[in-house]
């Protein structure tokens, strides 16, 4: 069973995404801030990382940096309400993220993107 790490401080959004992914048969790990996210990346060995950009303690870009150093082969999806900020999008893609999903988003659409990436 594939393991997906979700780093998101909004409880409702993360629960919704978690619910959808569990229905698709994924194991999910949910954390609410950047520090917990980095710890989870090191300890949990996820197959995919979904991270928001604006989260407490460490932002999404720092998470991506860390993930690229420690787990270079793990795909990353960035989920953010800063989707219109071109520089953040560019930086994320330069770091090698697999996808960038701006908010508002459709969880079903996200699930399809995850399925495609993990294939």
């Amino acid at each position, binding site marked *: 069973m594939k393991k997906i790490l979700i780093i998101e401080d*909004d409880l409702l959004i993360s629960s919704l995404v978690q619910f959808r992914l569990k229905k698709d048969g994924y194991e999910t790990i949910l954390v609410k801030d950047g520090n917990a996210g980095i710890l989870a990346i090191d300890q949990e060995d996820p197959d995919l990382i979904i991270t928001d950009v604006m989260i407490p303690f460490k932002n999404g870009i720092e998470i991506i940096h860390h993930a690229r150093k420690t787990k270079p082969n793990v795909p990353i999806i960035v989920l953010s309400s800063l989707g219109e900020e071109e520089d953040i999008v560019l930086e994320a893609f330069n770091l090698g993220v697999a996808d960038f999903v701006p908010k508002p*988003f459709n*969880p079903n659409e996200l699930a399809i993107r995850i399925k495609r990436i993990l294939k």
Partner: protein
Amino acid sequence: MEDFQAKIIILFILLMHSSQVCFSQDSIRSLTDSSSVMIFLAEQEEVPGLAYRLVFTSPDQIKNFGADSIIDLTNNEFAISRRFDRLKDVFAWKNNFTPQDSIDSEIQFTLYEQPVNWQKTRDFLNDALAKGEISISSQVIENGSDLISMAHHVPFQSSKKNGFGFFSDLKIFMITAIIVLFVVITISMMLFMIIFKSNKNKKERLRLEYDEKIVGPLSEILFDRSREEIKSLSSEDLHSYFPAELLIKPLFKEVLIERVLSLNKTMKGDFKQKLKALFKRLEFDKLSKESLSSLKWDRVVAGLVQINEMDLTEAETEVKKLVNSSNFQIRSQAVATLLNISKSVDLSFLRDQTFPLSRWQQMNYLRIIRYLQSQKDLHLESLFESENQSIRLFGYKLVRILGRVDLVQLMVDKFDKVSETEKIEMLYTFEVIGVPVDSKLITDSLRSDNEKLIRRSALAAGQIGDESTEVALWEILPNTTSFQLRKTILKSLKSLNPTKYNSFIKVNSLTDLQEINSHLLDPLLQDV
């Protein structure tokens, strides 16, 4: 109520009277208590009629006395000394045989050979003082309060006959009352804060608890049910997600509504439609409409926000009633909501608003209008007919910002009849849009007395002027004293007729003209 107040006043007066209130202690020149009597007598020589004896409570005590002491032993229970005419002699004699602080003897007063108590002695002395037979020294203590005098063994007796002595001293009473009141208020405030904080903490805990109870079922409904299924959910099914006993609780409903609105902002596609269907199925739309009638403005605004987010078009009539509310927040939100939810409404409702439009409101409405104008005709021109100048000005701004070239002619037709503030706004719009207008508008404005209007006209002339405006600019230039205005005029002249401008600069050696010219030629500064 008046009878009760009268009774209280009468009771208070009786208390003060019966407690023998003394308001000025300094005016007393009489003995009041046993201490003052003893101190007075200790300083006195003989007082005619008054004598003293020492009474020993136990006959055994006299064993130590010498043979020259005269003791009356007729009573087996106690012994009485000889008679003394001065109190100081009694003390001196007593100290020879017993320790100074001994309490095994007491002084007996006699008036004309008859034993009396100290009160009668006091009255006798006061009488003598009043007649002037003896005088009182300033060292006598007159303090109204009584102490037990151990050395003189005179028992304490209060000079006040009843128990209301406390009320006799008004100052003490007032101070005590104020302190007690202060303590009571402090304790009340502390209790209130503790209770308030405890309730607030309880509410926060409940919110977190409800949050956890809402997240799971809400996710299930959105993923497992289609929009049609949500609309037609039975009560049983609905309560399987959200128990009935929780749905009746106002706080639970409040948290659930917040979560639904929050998700509505974050989700798109069919999830938004499902959330709207769920909102109606839970009958929260009724709550939102009820909020519009609340007396509290924050509840009204919350209701308007819910109606806006959930697209409750059926609430249009109620929302329309609030667009001219005296409360700024309600008014702003009502206009924004009406623009969003109404399919038929245009800006004519804004025309009738009587309150001035703030810059914040304009910015808010512009965002919505900009989005809506591609979907329907908002009849923007209706704003030009408003009796509210701020609304008319907003209308002219909208023409400029939205690029409504088709409305320029309407503005031109009204130009002569409007105020100078509106003319300034109109000219700015003409300038930005860049549509040439009747030059008479600009030339007439250049000749006005209002410097702001002249400046705006000069700027507009540089963009959309012609030969006649150029002539007008040359006419007003010599009489212009303001540096800013001269700079504006020269800039426009340079734009309209560069050749004539350059010739003018060459033949004019005035310092400020040359400085302005340098400024206009500088590629960095020319637009400053």
